[in-house]
């Protein structure tokens, strides 16, 4: 495994901002005293005149971003997921979502993989919160390449968006030829017995799970669902029809996230079992990120077990 390239999705965010800084006149990037961690710091270093720090004041950060957007700017507003989606939820809802302003929320350090900082910083509720805001687009990229392309696509698309990035370096899945489209799922592995629909760092775990399942004679398809809203209903319906059971995998509470979104589509179209792998309605804790992911069942092993249960339901 020594040759596996690992990068955090937040690195892709920083790189994309750098690229945008060079070509967009109306771009403004904001942070709330976490620029080094969120990677907006790399943008700030190169384009200090296009960067504003709100200090430790996320509610105001979102409001100022809304005001800047209302005067014709494309604004990326960054903080940790916990504070961007959690603390500032109502500001995002009322001063970005309701007036449908062109603010892109760059939320890093999402999920359990924050690691040692523990439960207060491990946001597993953000997708659920953001999904309930009308018109909000949610993108949760699987690797740094997808993250970069998602940020570029977001900048070129009007309207409020929530971009979810991780702190932990994860294996690179895509290469530079990868073409990202907002709202489009992409099938990474074909399969007939079960479809694993994954998002974020769970996509790589899903790929490993599919390999293991193959060795055990189970043919598992893997779909990368980077855009959680608007969700690619067509891809879900096709998967439900083809494999008859679905397993979802996300680094988020199983309530309100990808699993819920997929189940909502399935139960109204092609009702088949949907089994959810995710954080099982509990708070996180301190520890090394990779250790925690295993501890909370956010790994290939748990996906394999769940996929087997799903296949058994068909008999």
């Amino acid at each position, binding site marked *: 495994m020594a040759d596996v390239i690992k990068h955090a999705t937040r690195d892709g965010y920083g790189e994309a901002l750098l690229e945008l800084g060079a070509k967009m006149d109306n771009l403004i990037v904001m942070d709330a005293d976490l620029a080094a961690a969120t990677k907006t710091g790399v943008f700030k270093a190169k384009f200090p005149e296009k960067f504003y720090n709100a200090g430790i004041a996320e509610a105001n950060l979102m409001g100022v971003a809304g005001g800047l957007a209302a005067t014709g700017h494309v604004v990326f507003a960054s903080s940790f997921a916990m504070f961007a989606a959690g603390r500032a939820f109502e500001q995002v809802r*009322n001063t970005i979502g309701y007036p449908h302003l062109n603010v892109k929320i760059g939320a890093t350090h999402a999920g359990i993989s924050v690691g040692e900082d523990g439960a207060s910083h491990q946001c597993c509720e953000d997708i659920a919160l953001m999904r309930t805001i009308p018109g909000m687009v949610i993108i949760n990229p699987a690797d740094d390449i997808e993250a970069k392309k998602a940020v570029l696509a977001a900048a070129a698309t009007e309207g409020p968006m929530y971009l979810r990035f991780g702190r932990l370096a994860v294996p690179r899945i895509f290469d530079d030829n990868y073409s990202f489209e907002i709202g489009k799922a992409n099938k990474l592995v074909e399969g007939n017995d079960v479809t694993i629909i994954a998002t974020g760092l769970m996509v790589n775990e899903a790929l490993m799970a599919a390999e293991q399942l193959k060795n055990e004679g189970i043919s598992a398809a893997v779909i990368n669902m980077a855009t959680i809203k608007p969700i690619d209903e067509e891809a879900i319906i096709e998967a439900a029809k083809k494999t008859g059971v679905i397993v979802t995998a996300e680094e988020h509470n199983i309530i309100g996230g990808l699993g819920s979104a997929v189940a909502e589509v399935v139960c109204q179209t092609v009702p088949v079992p949907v089994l959810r792998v995710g954080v099982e309605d509990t708070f996180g804790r301190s520890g090394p990120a990779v250790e925690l992911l295993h501890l909370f069942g956010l790994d290939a092993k748990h996906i394999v077990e769940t996929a087997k249960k799903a296949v058994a339901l068909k008999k």
Partner: protein
Amino acid sequence: MDNQLKKELQINACKVRMGVIEGTFNAKSGHPGGSLSVSDIMTYLYFVEMNVDAKNPQNPDRDRFVLSKGHTAPALYGALALKGFFPFDEIKTLRKSDSMLQGHPSMKMTPGVDMSTGSLGQGISTAVGMALGAKHDKKDFRVYTVLGDGEIGEGQVWEAAMFASAKKLDNLVAVVDNNNLQIDGTLEEVNSSYPIDEKFVAFGWNVINIDGHNFDEIEAAFKKARECKGKPTAIIAKTVKGKGVSYMENVCGWHGKAPNEEEYKVAMEELNNQLKDLEA
């Protein structure tokens, strides 16, 4: 202030107040008290201070207004209607399900509204963002916001205040409508925000105390704000909640209650008499 201008402003402010009563009466809900306290300031902003044009409401170089105390939308709608953004009669549709006039301002639905507000404490941040946007683009437009004196209990107001002075946004004016009454009682009874002026001074603002119903003082304050460089300006306007309608003045209960038919008639008669006196 020129006497002719003062009379015109007083007439328009009286018409704004009639709109407040007309709107809340027809809606059978809404917030007349704080709308009436802020009517003079709204009138001055739209008829003297701000560079806005009803024929070109989206002009990128226009001055911006954010009603941070969004529940007093009827006063904003009255001023916008008198300025020609929409017919004055539209106010009778306030809060109805097919109306463009929402209970709290919506920038997507109402011409002339620059920001959707209603959740207290949030409007000022968006005004700060607009003022920053002007500075960022080296544009000359100015940004105005009106806050309630109860609203400033929201912590976000002070986040915004700190940011605005740190970023030296001298193109921003925040008016605090200090009518001294919030829903549950006087400011002191609820959770005193006094001294308001000293708080804004401590946050690095240029602060001006005025009588919010005196057009000479209102004019002087906004002129001083234009002259002040390097700091945002806070105008603390002492006002009377319910101003202009005798039975509503300084009565807490008229924060969020519409007049009934009898009360409506009395209020309109009083305002009509004031208008007649002004026009005489």
